[in-house]
């Protein structure tokens, strides 16, 4: 009885989580320009979406900025984390605290801070400021996922590499980086999703004509625009597919291994 009750409760929660997602998918196929009454099946909003220059450009900017911001912030964050692990305690302490700031601060404060920063340097808001802002808020996340890995690393390993005739660069690329690879990888993944999903910081740091998906959705809600449903559906499908592949494939592999073990 108790078990059923808890399962029922979880099912209710899942209903709450997934109802709006299903709703968006259903209404993306709606024939009418309505968010409340379903009149018939049609693909016209998908057609409209692919023809809409503003939607396509927002997708383009979202992807390109996420890719560049991830690449730059991963490199900078990793180098900064490695440098930090070799510096003295005081500096380490200060930088770690500062690094935590953007995560404790409300996003909107970070956003207006960056906006004021760019304008006081007389940089015109637009693609450059959007990209710089994304790099800036991604770096702390990369550092945060690389630093624990570095802490686990034995200092003597790098020294041993140097003793055995490695140049410092070789020691870095052949010894340190392979050891912290998983940290770098998960940092890059977090950076990509943060950048891809960001709204608040993009909203304040972008300029006229440059939209990412989030700011486009925000600017288009004043009127009813079912193309947004179509766009959302495609995003939902891609994310779900990636997640299923990423999570189910290892699961199946693990089961196969298990089965094989059982056979022998």
């Amino acid at each position, binding site marked *: 009885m108790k*078990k059923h009750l*808890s*399962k029922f*409760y*979880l099912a209710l*929660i*899942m209903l*709450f*989580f*997934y*109802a*709006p*997602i299903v*709703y*968006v998918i259903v*209404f993306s196929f709606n024939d009418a320009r309505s*968010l*409340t009454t379903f009149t018939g099946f049609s693909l016209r909003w998908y057609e409209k979406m692919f023809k809409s220059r503003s939607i396509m450009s927002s997708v383009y900017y979202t992807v390109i900025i996420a890719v560049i911001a991830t690449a730059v912030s991963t490199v900078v964050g990793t180098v900064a984390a490695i440098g930090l692990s070799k510096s003295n305690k005081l500096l380490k302490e200060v930088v770690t605290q*500062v*690094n935590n*700031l*953007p995560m*404790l*601060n*409300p*996003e*909107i*404060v*970070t956003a*207006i*801070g*960056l*906006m*004021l*920063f760019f304008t*006081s340097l007389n940089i015109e808001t637009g693609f450059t400021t959007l990209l710089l802002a994304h790099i*800036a808020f991604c*770096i*702390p996340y990369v550092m945060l996922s690389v630093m624990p890995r570095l802490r686990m690393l034995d200092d003597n390993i790098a020294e041993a590499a140097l003793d055995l005739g490695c140049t410092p660069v070789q020691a870095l690329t052949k010894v340190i980086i392979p050891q912290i690879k998983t940290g770098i990888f998960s940092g890059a993944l977090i950076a990509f*999703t943060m950048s*891809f*999903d960001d*709204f*608040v910081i993009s909203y*304040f740091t972008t300029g006229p004509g440059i939209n990412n*998906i*989030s700011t486009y*959705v*925000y600017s288009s*809600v004043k009127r009813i625009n079912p193309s*947004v449903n179509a*766009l*959302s559906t495609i*995003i*939902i499908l891609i*994310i*779900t597919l990636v*997640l299923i592949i990423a*999570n189910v494939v290892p699961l199946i592999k693990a089961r196969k291994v298990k089965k094989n073990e059982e056979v022998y």
Partner: protein
Amino acid sequence: MIVVPMLIIIFYAFTKEGNSVINVKVTLENFGRFLSDETFTSVLLRSIKIAVITTLICILIGYPAAYCIAQLKADSQSVVVLMVTLPQLINMLVRTYAWRGILLNSGFSPEVKVYIGMVYNFLPFMILQVYTSLSKMDKNLIVAAKDLGCNEFKAFLKVVLPLSIPGVIAGITLVFLPAVSSFFIPKLLGGGSFVLVGNLIENYFVTIGDWNFGSAISLVMTVIILISMYFTRKLDYNQEER
């Protein structure tokens, strides 16, 4: 890149027409204007109220949910956790936009709509935090408590609950912080008339263009958040000392 923007906000908040460095006037006027005007303080109080109630709802719904997940078999646990995480990976704007359609003709007041949107967006944080602290717990502790004469309810109250408090505290931080500063949830779901402090900041920066006053508002908000964070942290330490 992190410190300088913060300093600029502080600089703007304490100055007047400081757009060129020469005629900067240091002033407390911005803060005075904010705190003396009732419309502004009522918006601030409303934001805090909404954030506090959202956090409470998230605890009330999220804790039992996390507890239920922790009771499942290990395989199903990871599946359910994945199902809780998945909607989070979908753009927050897109998810809030979805609620707009559902709630359009629902007849709920703007305030209720904003609550629904906030709980929807922030509940996963609470569930995942509490779940992590529950799943880390040593199950033998519960067995031991029962051996020593506790009934199920008492074992939960005396053993499970105190040990999961750090997870709840972390959840509170993750829910309260974005809830108090959110501006697109009230805008998308509450309609234009429902203003929270985040909307106020947005208006002063984007529509009105009074950056000094906007900076002052965000500084007030940041200070309030820092104070509440300090108290939640303290709660945590008190728990540990006991």
